[in-house]
């Protein structure tokens, strides 16, 4: 038995099977006790925000471009799908169309943004976020129902209605896993490696024949699509969308999730989302929770920037490498002792 656990491959497989089994039975466990539904709801939000943070990570972490207007793409994805669905288009086509709109929108910002320096990209994306939010509040023709917001019908997938949290759970879980797999495939692909090279050094990447601008644009569009997809999921999970839900606070939330977890790592955004959600749920009961939340985002971002630039996952891998180095040093010392 001990031998089996020592074999790394088998151990990994066992861990994976146990995780999948746990994830599968989670809704069953949570719906069995009274306040369980609430926790299930929180977990669903974690999935949605994790997708958005992962999307943001492609742009910020892997391509080295800052985005402080994530809420803009999030809201375009949400409003796009809901408005198209209200027109009578089947959900799948509505989502695809909305993603096309988000992609086009991302492309519009990406093309001029690819030539901007880091600081000004931050300002530009912030401006995009503010403009989109203003248009949502005072929309042309009132298609977004302005400040009243819109109520969203239950998600309808090929006649399969997903309205309860336990039903949505599986859909959101699968979506998140697919997004993580996609991100993994993206960073391992030729395009992804080119993006990472361009992030690390524009000049060196250019010298190796990487078209830096092109890959920056690709990374931005892919990241915008993923954030927009998260927006669509958010609309059907929250069942109500209004300009307030997509204010600048959401952009900073995504940013702090990505940064806290560790930008440029695959599971960092997911980890960051879980941590930020815990903070959010703890602060929920306080009076003036919004302000404390803003304060905690600020403190989290500042702490990450000052003490752990690669986030929590960077901290973990740092500890791991330190342990390995220590081990090697001990081994070497032992060898020397034996020698002498």
């Amino acid at each position, binding site marked *: 038995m001990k031998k089996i656990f020592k074999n790394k491959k088998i151990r990994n497989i066992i861990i994976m099977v146990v995780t999948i089994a746990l994830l599968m039975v989670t809704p069953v466990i949570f719906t069995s006790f009274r306040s369980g539904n609430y926790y299930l709801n929180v977990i669903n939000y974690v999935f949605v925000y994790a997708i958005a943070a992962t999307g943001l990570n492609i742009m910020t972490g892997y391509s080295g471009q800052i985005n402080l207007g994530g809420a803009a793409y999030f809201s375009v994805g949400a409003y796009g799908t809901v408005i198209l669905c209200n027109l009578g288009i089947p959900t799948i086509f509505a989502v695809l169309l909305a993603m096309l709109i988000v992609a086009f929108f991302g492309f519009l910002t990406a093309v001029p943004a690819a030539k901007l320096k880091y600081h000004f990209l931050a300002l530009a994306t912030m401006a995009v976020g503010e403009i989109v939010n203003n248009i949502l509040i005072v929309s042309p023709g009132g298609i977004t129902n302005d400040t009243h917001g819109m109520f969203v019908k239950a998600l309808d997938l090929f006649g399969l209605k997903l309205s309860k949290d336990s039903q949505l759970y599986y859909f959101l879980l699968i979506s998140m896993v697919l997004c993580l797999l996609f991100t993994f495939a993206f960073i391992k692909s030729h395009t992804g490696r080119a993006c990472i090279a361009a992030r690390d050094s524009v000049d060196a990447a250019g010298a190796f024949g990487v078209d830096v601008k092109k890959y920056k644009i690709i990374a931005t569009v892919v990241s915008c699509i993923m954030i927009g997809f998260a927006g669509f999921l958010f609309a059907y999970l929250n069942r109500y969308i209004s300009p307030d839900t997509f204010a600048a606070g959401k952009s900073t939330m995504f940013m702090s999730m990505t940064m806290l977890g560790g930008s440029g790592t695959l599971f960092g955004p997911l980890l960051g989302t879980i941590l930020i959600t815990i903070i959010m749920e703890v602060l929920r009961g306080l009076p003036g929770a919004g302000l404390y939340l803003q*304060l905690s985002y600020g403190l989290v971002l500042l702490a990450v920037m000052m003490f752990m630039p690669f986030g929590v996952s960077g901290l973990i891998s740092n500890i791991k490498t330190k342990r390995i180095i220590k081990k090697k040093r001990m081994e070497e010392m032992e060898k020397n002792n034996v020698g002498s």
Partner: protein
Amino acid sequence: MDFLKLVLQLLIPGLCLGCVYGLNGIGSALLYKGSHTINNAQGAIVGLGALIGYSIQQGLKIGLIASTAIVVVITFFIGVFLQVFIISRVERRSSMYVVIATLALSLIISSISMLTFGSWTFESATIIIHGSKYLHINFVNVDILWSNIIAIIISFIAMISIHLFLNRTSFGMAMRSAAMDSFAAESCGVSVVKTRAVTWGIMAALGALGGCLMGPLFGISAGIGIAMGNKGNTGAVLGGYGNMYGAIIGGLIIGMVETIFGYIYSPYQSAFTYALFLVFLLLLPKGIMNEKAIEEG
């Protein structure tokens, strides 16, 4: 005559707004020249300065100008403090981190000032001359707030004194040399650490000065600064980022355009200003003063 009245009624507030944006723009220009970073926390500092000014007015029962002078001194030290204890530590890694760190500072400062002062709008003290808040111009029969006129005058005095400080004093010279080439300046005996700290101090003080002067116009709340900081940046981009004089001109233009646009059609006022910012950033990246700061390569 009606047209002239309208022009005056739009011109003076527009000029006043423009001066405040210009003051914010000067700060970001000095910072960009000095350390190639931007400051997202400027807006929050403006709001904090205005609130401190209000509490001084209430606590010491003094007028607008005296309280503003005290606020300028306080915020100067706040700026120095932020640079020395927070920004300089982040700056060592990469200027990229400063963007996010200042954003974090902005969130922290604005939420703390809202938690301590509340999120409602306070009524600021105004300037009363000859027993009236307004300057009455008989010629066109129009009333103009004295505080607007005083704000314009004080802003111009501040701008001129910054200009003189940078060009005529030895520390100003040191600051300019550090901005030009920090390595060379350091080897000539300029303390770059000091000049950077003072840059942050000046930036915070100018922003807070603007915030206090805007008090009588909009009322004082923690939120007023956010738009002001962003519009100061817009003005700085329009003038050519990193150029102090460009920032003043850009700020004045933004203030005027915004006032006139707000008069014509108000619902999209904020979207309009940000759209203007994007247009300048993307189509006119060198700005009026032909500064090559924004684009890569």
